[in-house]
């Protein structure tokens, strides 16, 4: 990722949080992804997708577990990986034929029966019908024969696999507007390690950096129109704990990457001296995450109704990383 920074295509924001933060990763992460509201059912990217209708084959994609950002009334495509496995595999040709044709028709009828009734039935209807549509839309895409471009080499990891699938689908020009990819393992309470090669955290950061670096290289000039936003709730305590790890913190680092980005480090640095820390333990925040989301919504996604995606937040103040 350091090359991206030197190219001037990366905004680094090391002090991101918000005024209403709490000490539960789950609640706070969900609130951030809901545009600044606790216990919300809709994510900020889903609210964006709802704000505007576009007829394209594949508009929104979630790799892995459905992220809170993508959850809501707009039914997004979710994939665990980009493979052509369909609804099953059989050595028996008649059975295979059944899996590829008749079963899909039967499933379609079953899901359509669920279009009314309880919330869970309607969820099954929406996501089930989406699944059957996507099987058709994605049937021509073969992840096994995908060739990366510009000499991009993806590392061997779940994050890299997801980003590689995402790059292939972006290049397939199916109208993709929003993709969500998740990566866990940042709760480094013990044996976090330092910058040494085998340190637990440094290995995770290496994978994070190499995966995003490969994605950026692979997309090449397409990065003019593609923006990567990395969001995290995982600030850590400023001091090491007794288990040689770090505990729940306050401000976290976010990155925005793309050829439309004004590369720089953003936000005032609050300092690490004891009297500058939040509650004496945590790096303080100087950037409200909603200002980052607002700028992405306004300048990249061309959505003027920022307050609708950010739980009524209208007092936004863009940082200027998109000019």
């Amino acid at each position: 990722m350091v090359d991206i920074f030197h190219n001037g295509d990366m905004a680094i924001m090391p002090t991101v949080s918000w005024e209403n933060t709490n000490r539960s990763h789950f609640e706070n992460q969900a609130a951030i992804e809901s545009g600044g509201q606790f216990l919300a059912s809709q994510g900020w990217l889903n609210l964006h997708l709802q704000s505007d209708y576009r007829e394209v084959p594949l508009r929104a994609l979630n790799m892995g577990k459905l992220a809170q950002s993508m959850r809501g009334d707009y039914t997004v495509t979710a994939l665990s990986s980009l493979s052509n496995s369909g609804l099953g595999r059989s050595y028996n040709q008649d059975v295979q034929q059944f899996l590829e044709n008749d079963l899909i028709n039967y499933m379609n009828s079953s899901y359509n029966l669920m279009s009314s009734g309880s919330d869970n039935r309607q969820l099954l209807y929406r996501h089930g019908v989406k699944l059957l549509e996507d099987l058709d839309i994605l049937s021509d895409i073969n992840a096994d024969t995908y060739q990366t471009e510009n000499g991009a080499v993806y590392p061997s990891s779940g994050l890299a696999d997801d980003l590689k699938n995402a790059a292939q689908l972006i290049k397939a020009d199916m109208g993709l507007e929003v993709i969500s990819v998740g990566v866990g393992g940042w709760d480094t309470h013990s044996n976090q390690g330092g910058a040494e090669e085998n340190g637990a955290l440094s290995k995770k950061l290496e994978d994070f950096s190499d995966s995003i670096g490969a994605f950026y290289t692979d997309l090449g000039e397409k990065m003019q129109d593609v923006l990567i936003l990395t969001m995290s709730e995982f600030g850590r305590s400023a001091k090491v704990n007794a288990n040689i790890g770090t505990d729940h913190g306050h401000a976290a680092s976010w990155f925005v990457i793309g050829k439309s980005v004004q590369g720089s480090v953003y936000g005032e640095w609050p300092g690490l001296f004891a009297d500058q820390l939040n509650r004496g333990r945590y790096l303080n925040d100087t950037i409200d995450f909603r200002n980052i989301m607002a700028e992405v919504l306004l300048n990249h996604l061309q959505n003027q109704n920022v307050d609708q995606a950010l739980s009524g937040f209208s007092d936004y103040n863009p940082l200027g990383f998109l000019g």
Partner: protein
Amino acid sequence: MEFVVGLNRTFAFPNPQPSGASTLKPDINGSMNRELTNMGMSLYRMPAPTGYPEVGKKWISSAQLKARIYYQNNLFLNRNSQMLTWVIEQGLSNEEEIVDYLLSLMLANDYQPEERAIALNILTDNG
């Protein structure tokens, strides 16, 4: 996870193995755990402190539905499937009995007549 354990306990089939071999014990280290991961519930990796979500709103997505459909199709349609033996052992003699028994086992009879009709069609088309 309840779905996978329930299917395996109810039917007690040999588990499908990539190599074509089979075992009567649930295959914790092989395909089953991989399938559970695809279903979003890796064994022993539940998020602390909340565990895996119980309500549909928190987990339903097209990928999760696909993983579940794929798993059950693989279980019933693979070459080692003992479905026919199982049906005979239960003393079920026609398609209506089979569908009614399966629906009562899996859905505790909480289904609509149209859903039963679709299940019956699937069975008679390919039985």
